[in-house]
């Protein structure tokens, strides 16, 4: 009764115009106190002072495809350094007449990644497709079977960065998961070995691992035996990243309620089944955000391989800048490189959010 009375007498009132729409938003977010109003004005002034000149430098006065001499005549940005040196920056010392090979390999890689990002393609066919793709990529990069062989020492630029990152992530993740399970094992030997591994690796910087892999490790090998330098760096990156992944995954494992383990046990599932079917799918879903954080930083850390004289895309850019013709255009070169890194990292970050949403079943 009373409820009915109140609904009939109630007028349909709209909120005041200063509290909705654009005006409401501006008022609520930018001018809701004297201090915030002051900040807003200051920030607007700062943007006004910096943005137009920056825009002028980057887009109006800039040159995009010119000789270095022409660049020296102008005040604007000399983006020409990138297209004019693209071959060296992207492919480094890979023989020039063979550079179609890493290009094709990269296109193939992007195609595979694009195909895989769709969850509908996650089925039994995925593994053979990737295996086949990686074999083809390896053949393109290395040669043989009709193609001239290109030693890994000459792999450089973007293909090297991508190789180190891709195998770094793909190798480190399963190893990290195993280490996390090992650290939670009840068997003392497995437990303590996992703890020692994780703590030792996390206790040293990646640079020192890379140094060890390139300088110390060969000393232990019998005479005449050599292991590829890129491979050694790759292993160091995998071992390093795995330790971080392990701790993140362990966090996820701890978040799974005991009841889930008990339910899996009481169905008669054995340990590998319980982990693979029940615990890990839930734990890994929880740790998508921090794992992707680690993978992103692993991607960026591949640039540290310069210290063992591998020429990744950062190093090839630096070499370009040391060319007297192009010396002095480092802002442009590094900005372009930063954009390249950003595109890869942002793509990973976006994908992780998409995946999180797709896997959400909590309701």
């Amino acid at each position, binding site marked *: 009764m009373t409820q009915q009375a109140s609904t009939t007498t109630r007028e349909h009132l709209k909120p005041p115009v200063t509290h909705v729409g654009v005006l409401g938003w501006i008022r609520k977010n930018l001018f809701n106190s004297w201090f915030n109003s002051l900040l807003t004005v200051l920030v607007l002034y700062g943007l006004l002072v910096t943005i137009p000149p920056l825009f002028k430098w980057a887009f109006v006065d800039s040159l995009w495809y010119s000789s270095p001499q022409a660049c020296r005549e102008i005040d604007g940005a000399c983006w020409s350094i990138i297209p004019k040196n693209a071959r060296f920056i992207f492919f480094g010392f890979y023989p020039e007449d063979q550079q179609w090979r890493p290009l094709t390999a990269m296109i193939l890689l992007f195609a595979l990644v694009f195909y895989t990002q769709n969850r509908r393609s996650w089925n039994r066919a995925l593994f053979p497709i990737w295996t086949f793709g990686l074999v083809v990529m390896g053949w393109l990069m290395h040669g043989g079977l009709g193609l001239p062989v290109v030693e890994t020492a000459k792999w450089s630029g973007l293909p090297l960065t991508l190789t180190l990152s891709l195998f770094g992530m793909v190798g480190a993740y399963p190893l990290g998961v195993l280490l996390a399970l090992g650290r939670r094992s009840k068997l003392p030997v497995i437990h303590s070995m996992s703890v020692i591994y994780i703590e030792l690796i996390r206790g040293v910087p990646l640079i020192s691992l890379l140094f060890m892999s390139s300088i110390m490790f060969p000393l232990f090998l019998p005479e005449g035996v050599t292991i590829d330098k890129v491979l050694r760096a790759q292993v160091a990156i995998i071992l390093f990243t795995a330790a971080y992944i392990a701790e993140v995954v362990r966090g996820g494992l701890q978040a799974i*309620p005991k*009841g*889930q383990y*008990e*339910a*899996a*046990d*009481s*169905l*008669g*599932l*054995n340990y590998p*089944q319980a982990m693979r*079917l*029940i615990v890990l*799918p*839930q734990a890994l*879903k929880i740790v998508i955000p921090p794992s992707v954080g680690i993978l992103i930083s692993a991607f960026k850390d591949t640039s540290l391989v310069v210290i063992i004289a591998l020429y990744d895309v950062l190093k090839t850019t630096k070499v370009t800048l040391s060319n007297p013709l192009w010396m002095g255009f480092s802002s442009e070169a590094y900005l372009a490189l930063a954009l390249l890194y950003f595109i890869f990292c942002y793509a990973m970050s976006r994908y992780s959010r998409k995946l999180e949403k797709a*896997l959400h*079943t*909590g*309701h």
Partner: protein
Amino acid sequence: MGIAMADKNIQKTSSDSDRPIIEIIGMHKWYGDFHVLADINLRVQEKERIVICGPSGSGKSTLIRCINRLEEHQRGQIIVDGIELTSDIKNIEKVRAEVGMVFQHFNLFPHLTIIENLTLGPVWVRKMPKKEAEEAAMMYLEKVRIAEQAKKYPGQLSGGQQQRVAIARSLCMNPRVMLFDEPTSALDPEMIKEVLDVMIDLAREGMTMLVVSHEMGFAKSVADRVMFMDDGQILEENNPNDFFDNPQHERTKLFLSQIL
């Protein structure tokens, strides 16, 4: 009584029928120094239905969790369907496949749909073809009156529905024994009945059941024996009529006066 019933079961040989399906002899368990179960002796015949009650901390949940070795005992013997529970993991897995367990908090797998929750055990443990497992699962879902929810995720179901799914999940393994660990304690009052109804159906069909519960109405209507536990011991056991009308032990009387 258990023997007489077992005779009707054509799958059983005569030697099987005198053998209890669960036999616990002089079993003790400690948590550190705390003596949580003391000298437990229990024989459960096939098709028997036993309700275990007692105050919280009396060890009743621990007792049934020992039967599928979610907890391990330190002394005495537990023999389930002729297999003694030791630290041998293969034996434990065998026993667990034969013994269904229903938990207080359902413990459904939240990342799998209802039907996937049900087929997981048969497919991976029993190596049943997926299609066959799905057909069986649908049959059990119908039995617990929830078939229309098969494609949903556990998080979309009410507590009572989830518990019925949990019962169906255990049934899919075709267990010889079902253990229930306070199956209705985490439910809102209006959902308790739907779960108890499913359990009563099961009891009528002759499932061997061990139920830790304070649902005395359920105990009265389906139990063959009711046990009272306190301080890690089985203090008293009797048929439900005598147990409720004429409790022997002081502590049983006190307990019953508090919950009835």
